[in-house]
């Protein structure tokens, strides 16, 4: 017997008939586990095993069909009973159906037995399902009611006229009275309802029945007290941030304006200084020619000091001007106007170095410093601002001469460091730079400890100009130094100049 087999209780005293019934069911393709009974005790026992169907002979000695039916109804309610009988008249059949029999069959027409059993069992299953579904529905209805009742939101179901159909306790608590309920019922969706410290968001929607899409309407009030508080906080924070942002922008604008004014001022002052400097240096030269003609050596010596200091002042002015323009825009030329690399003229670095050395020579001679140049003959021209590059050479050279050992030497080297990279190096044999100071080289107005303690003249602008100019040409600047052993500065410049930089 498999679990799928139909459990059939056969109330029959004759084994041959039991066999007959079993054969009829098998013929019809039904696998059955048949339990024959011929007494009420046996029947009761068989029924306790929850059979699927009972097939009862109408005439079993010692048993009445009515009693069999009653026993089934009480012991196994719902189990269908099919009566199998040798002979039958209409009245008996009607009486049997009245007593709840599922079907009545004649023993000599058992061909229909399988179908009858199937129908009876199927009907019972349906009935059972309906019972189950009714119970489930009731349970779900209970859950729904509980859901509504215990919902943290206030829920009301109302007639179109506003009379309440149903509401939960929260809704009733908010409505307070009939007047309050009418007020809630009239509130449009999206509006807010305040109750003490609490705030509720109103949702109002049509509720349909089978025929009328607006048979009623629902009102749900959701507690948004916390959200409102968070929202208010967010708004306050946002306003604060906006205020800060505005202030930052204003500060930034002010700083930019200040920076522009500073650059303009430095520009103007530098330009204005050039004119009197032209006169100072120019008249100095005329006096020099004059003193030469007179052979006045003392006068010439006094004049040379005046000229040297005028030249120093001019160098300072040039550095200020370079710094003002270079800092204002990294790609700017010394005119302060942006220029693309392609517009920059080709500059012969070796030639520029020669000219710079000529300018530096008097200062070097005064300190007894010799200058050597080792230049690469195959150096390609560099797309550069010649004025800026000249300042780079003059400033680096002036430092090297100033910090070289007395009667020491300064060595210049140029070389091709890559297919498109020109390298320029200047090395002195002087005091060197402490490693702490190395990092801060090139910051405006920064001067090394040794420069200050040794009273080496300077402003702290020279390397700032170098740094800005080299950066403006897309180049690199490197320092190598050990205190007491001298300093080597290396400048690498791309041959094609700075790449066009994206606007800030």
């Amino acid at each position, binding site marked *: 017997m498999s679990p799928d087999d139909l459990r059939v209780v056969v109330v029959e005293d004759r084994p041959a008939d039991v066999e007959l019934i079993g054969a009829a069911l098998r013929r019809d393709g039904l696998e059955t586990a048949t339990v024959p009974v011929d007494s009420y005790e046996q029947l009761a026992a068989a029924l306790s095993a929850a059979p699927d169907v009972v097939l009862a002979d109408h005439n079993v000695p010692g048993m009445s069909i009515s009693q069999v039916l009653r026993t089934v109804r009480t012991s196994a309610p719902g189990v269908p009973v099919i009566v199998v009988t040798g002979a039958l008249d209409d009245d008996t059949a009607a009486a049997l159906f009245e007593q709840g029999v599922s079907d009545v069959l004649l023993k000599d027409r058992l061909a229909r037995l399988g179908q009858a059993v199937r129908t009876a069992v199927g009907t019972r299953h349906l009935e059972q399902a309906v019972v189950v579904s009714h119970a489930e529905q009731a349970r779900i209805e209970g859950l729904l009611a509980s859901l509504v009742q215990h919902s943290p939101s206030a829920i009301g179901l109302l007639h179109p006229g506003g009379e309440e159909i149903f509401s939960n306790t929260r809704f009733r608590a908010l409505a307070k009275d009939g007047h309050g309920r009418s007020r809630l019922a009239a509130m449009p969706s999206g509006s807010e309802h305040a109750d003490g410290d609490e705030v509720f968001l109103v949702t109002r929607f049509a509720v349909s029945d089978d025929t009328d899409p607006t048979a009623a309407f629902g009102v749900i009030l959701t507690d948004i007290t916390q959200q409102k508080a968070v929202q208010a906080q967010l708004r306050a924070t946002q306003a604060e941030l906006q205020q800060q942002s505005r202030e930052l922008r204003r500060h930034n604008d002010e700083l930019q304006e200040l920076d522009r004014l500073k650059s303009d001022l430095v520009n103007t002052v530098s330009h204005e200084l*050039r004119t009197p400097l032209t006169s100072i240096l120019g008249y100095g030269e005329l006096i020099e020619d004059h003193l030469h003609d007179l052979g006045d050596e003392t006068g010439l010596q006094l004049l040379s000091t005046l000229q040297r200091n005028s030249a120093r002042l001019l160098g300072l002015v040039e550095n200020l001007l370079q710094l003002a323009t270079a800092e204002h825009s990294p790609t700017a030329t010394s005119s302060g106007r942006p220029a693309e690399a392609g517009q920059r003229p080709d500059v012969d670095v070796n030639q520029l170095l020669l000219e710079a050395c000529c300018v530096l020579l008097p200062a070097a001679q005064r300190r007894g410093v010799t200058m050597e140049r080792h230049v690469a003959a195959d150096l390609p021209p560099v797309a550069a601002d010649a004025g800026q590059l000249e300042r780079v050479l003059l400033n680096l050279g002036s430092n090297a001469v100033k910090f070289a050992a007395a009667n020491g030497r300064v060595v210049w080297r140029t070389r091709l460091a890559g297919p498109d990279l020109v390298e320029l190096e200047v090395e002195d044999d002087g005091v060197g730079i402490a490693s702490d100071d190395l990092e801060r080289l090139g910051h405006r107005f920064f001067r090394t400890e040794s420069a200050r303690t040794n009273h080496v003249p300077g402003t702290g602008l020279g390397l700032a100009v170098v740094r800005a100019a080299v950066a403006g040409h897309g180049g690199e600047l490197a320092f190598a130094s050990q205190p007491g052993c001298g300093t080597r500065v290396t400048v690498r410049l791309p041959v094609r100049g700075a790449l066009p930089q994206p606007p800030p």
Partner: protein
Amino acid sequence: MANILVVDDDEDICDLIRLKLTSMGHDVHVVHDGAAAVTALHDQGVPTDLVLLDGMMPVMDGETTCRTLRADPRTAGLPVLMLSARGTPQDALRGRDAGADGYIMKPFSPRDIAAQVVLALERGRTPGGTASAVPAEATGPRAGDRR
């Protein structure tokens, strides 16, 4: 020797140039703004072989003055060297755009000026420059002296 017109609003600079150039044997005439230079050349017929023109001046600046001179057939071919305290490659380009033949940055040394003046007088204005559009008979005053 040549007649040279010096145009600069700074009197000391004017004197400096005049002292140097007269020591070389040149005749120097000085005015202090561009408009005065134009008047001297166009209306007063001041004999001039070369103009030294400052860039930043009141009334009429150097570039405008240079353009004005170039636009008039009488002075279109006159050599002009510009002086400027702004001294940047861009300024030099602007001066050339205005029609100047050369550009001297301030601060300059009197020796520089002397050398540049000699070069400019020797070179004159080459054909094919701005002056090429001007008919040969309409060159500047005393243009014939400059050779």
